[in-house]
Structure formats: C-alpha cells, structure tokens
C-alpha cells in the first residue's frame, strides 16, 4: 500500500515537472514571437526610412543627374535600364521614372521605355525585384534630354516622378 502511494507521488511530481517545463516553453515562445514581430516591424520601418532619405537625393546621384539640382537625365536612364547590376546598389526593391504622360493615362496604357521606342514612351523601369509586398515612395523631378531642332541642340525638360519601392517584410520572412 505504502509502495503504491510513493509511486503515485513520483508520478504526480513527474507530471507537475512536465507541466512546468511546458509552461516555460510556452512563455518563451510567446516572448520570442513578440520580439521577432517587433524586429520585423523595426526592419521594415528602417528600410522605409532609408528609402525616404535616399529618394530625396537620388536625382542628384551621378547615374541620374542632368547637371542641375533635382534633375534627371533621361538619356542616362536608357543606359541604366539595360544595366541589371544596379539592383543591389540602391536600397530599393524597385525603381522607376514616370514621365508626365503617366499622370493622366491609365496604368494599363503606359508604354514601357526601351532603347527602340525612346523618347516616345511613358515609364523608365530601372529595375523591379518583383517582391510580394511593397510600398512605393515618389519624388517629383525635372526630366531632361538632348533634342535637335533646326540644327540647334537644346535640353528639353518636363516634369516626372521618381518612384522607389520598399519591401514590406512580414514576420518570419
């Protein structure tokens, strides 16, 4: 009888210990899920901050600049579109320049610029990493190119939008 009572107590103790360990594991998992969700939010907000701070100066970067403040050289954009190396250079998930014509046209009617149809096109897509979730931030710039009229070269400028995307990362990605 005494032996059975002792066995019962050991069993009780074992169950109790298993319950306590399970409790601590659950608490730990809960704490980690909160920490990692905050980390993911922090990473996304840091990436957005970087996109915002970068895009305001991007038009003056040597790859884009036409030589005037906040002015993009569209002749350089044609060269940049064919250069995939820049995908890992800027901290954006996508980068494009939308000409004035896109402000009034439907997105489905936009004509993507290529070296063949330039300058009769709407969007210069520098690169697009095709991420799942993305938030786009834009900045208005002057878009200039060299034109020839009556044997006279001049710079023709129009308003355009420099659009940069930031990848929104979900927890666990």
């Amino acid at each position, binding site marked *: 009888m005494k032996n059975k009572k002792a066995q019962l*107590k050991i069993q009780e103790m074992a169950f109790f210990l298993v319950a306590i360990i399970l409790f601590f594991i659950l608490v730990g998992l809960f704490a980690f899920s909160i920490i990692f969700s905050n980390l993911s939010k922090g990473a996304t907000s840091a990436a957005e901050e970087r996109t915002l701070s970068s895009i305001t100066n991007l038009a003056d970067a040597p790859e884009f600049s036409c030589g005037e403040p906040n002015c993009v050289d569209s002749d350089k954009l044609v060269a940049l579109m064919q250069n995939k190396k820049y995908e890992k250079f800027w901290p954006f998930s996508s980068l494009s320049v939308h000409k004035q014509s896109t402000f009034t046209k439907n997105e489905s009617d936009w004509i993507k610029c290529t070296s063949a149809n330039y300058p009769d096109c709407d969007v210069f897509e520098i690169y697009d990493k095709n991420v799942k979730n993305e938030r786009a931030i834009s900045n208005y710039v002057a878009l200039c190119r060299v034109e020839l009229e009556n044997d006279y*070269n001049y710079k023709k400028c129009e308003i355009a939008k420099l659009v940069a995307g930031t990848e929104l990362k979900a927890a666990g990605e």
Partner: protein
Amino acid sequence: MADKKSMISYLFKNKQGIEMGFNVMFAIFAGIVILGLAVYGATKIINTGEKAIYTETSAKIISLLDPLETGLASGKSEQIKFKKETRIFFECNALDNPPFGKQTIAFSEQTFGDKFGEQGGAVPVYNKYVFSQDIIQGSSLNIFSKEFSMPFKIADLIVINTENYCFYQVPNEIKKDIENLGIKNIQFSDNLQNCTGVIVCFGVQSSECNVKVFGSCEDSFGSICESEYDYGRVSKGLDDIYYIDSLLYAAIFSSPEIYDCNLKRLMNKLNELGLVYIDKIKIIQRKGCGSDIEIELRALMDSAKALSSSREIIGLARFAKDIDKINQATASACKLY
C-alpha cells in the same frame, strides 16, 4: 543501555523521514534546473534584444548619411551625438556584391563601467563610400562629405571620425575648404607645441606628426595643377597612401585598408558610370552631338579597372584631365556631364 537500543530500533522503523527527504531533494534539484533554464533563457532574450537595438542603430546611422549626399554642393558636414560612449566597426570588401563591393557598419555602446556590449549585427551598405578607421570610439561622430570627380562625379566620399585633429602648416586652400565645411574637431596651427590630438603635417618631416601629407602636383603636372596638394601622398607610419583631389581627406582620416578597398570600389563605379556615359554618347549622337570623348573615356575605364594600388591613381588623373578638356570644349547642350 535499554534506552540506546530503543532509540536505534525507532530510527530503523521510522521510514517517513527518509521519504520526505527524497521529495525535498528532488524538488530542490528540479527547481535549480528550472530556475537555471529560466535565467539562461532570460539572459539570451536580453542579449538578443540588445543586439537587435544595436543593429537598428547601425541602420539608422546609415540613413543619417543620406542627407550628406552633396548633390551639386562641394561638401557637407554634420555631427551625431550619443548619450553613451559608443564604438562603431567598419569593414569593407571590394569583391563582394560585384562590381560595386560593399561596406558594413556595426554598433556597440558602453553598458556597465568600461564594458562594451556585444557588437550588433553588421549592416551592409552598397551605395556609400565611408572612409574611417576600422574601429572608432567616442560619444559624438564628426561626419563630412566631399564630392569625388574624375572628371565626372563618381560618388560622395563620406568621412567619419571621433578624434580631435590638428592640421600643421596647412595650405590656405585646404584650410578654407575645411572652414567652409564647418568641421568642429579640426584646429589649425603653425606651431607644433600648440597642437593636440592627431597631428597632421603638410610638407613637414617630423617625428611629432602622426600623419604627413606631401603634395606632388607641381612635379607631375606642372601648369595643370591649381595647388601643390591636388595630387600627392599621405604617410602614416609605414604606410604610404596616394591621393588625388578630395581623396586627400579620405586618406588622412581612414585606415589604409579601408582606403584601398573603397578606392577599388570607386574605380569599379567609375567603370560602370563610364558604360552609362558611352551609351549616352550613342544616344546624343543621334541628335547631332558628336565628340571624340569615347576613346579617352574607354582608356580611363580600362586603367580604372586595372588599378591595383593607390600609387596608380595619379596616372589616371591625366586621362581625366584630357576628357574634361574635350567636354568643356563641347557645345553646352551636348556636354556629356
């Protein structure tokens, strides 16, 4: 005697005491294990949290470097102050992420006493050229940027330092340049006795100087030079670093390893920008803009790609000068840059 016998028989018959002892011992053992695991887990969570904060701080420092992009200005400066003493770790790799290379920035700050927390995650930077010592320590970061052109703008050089500097016998144009940038931790002196901090001497061979700058522009380029210090050499102990133009500041303030790595990255960027300009030449040629710049540009790009040490940078400056001359002579709308 009878009492002693009865006491022994009582101890042997009474087993309840031994049973309680086992329970208590087992509970203590299990408690210690559980508490130990809990303390270990809590420490790990705190460390992870600390590392996450340090990594986030590195990312924020990188964001704070964006407003230093010069645009059309020749330079900018700013100061970042921290509440505690901090350490920032810089690494540079010109071969990673080809062709642009990459730099990493990691952060740590003082926790208890003189102890520093574990270094946070290294945050990569691909589109910036940060010149600094490998590890810098202080409660305020002095940052300034200078445009680097060869002959077109390649990038902005960002210089980060925490120490006080004394520039001895500095030429007027460099003094004006630094004063215009509003850099607070650089003092100028014509007397070495008045100098404190890191002493940077211009054209002086003295053991008291930590860094020596020797301009060689007059020798190599004659009338092309605006100042003796347009091109030259920066000597730091055993290491000699060669510079042109605004790379002078990068050479003074950064470690030779970071300077060489970033110089290679800059040359790779020159090459990539060269390709963009070659495509632009073809586009504007269709609009009646002809020029002989492409041959010179290709020669500059080939030399930049082949650059193996900073000593060769001065030779590249010749090509850059030739390209600039051709570009300046071109009609305004047809200028390449």
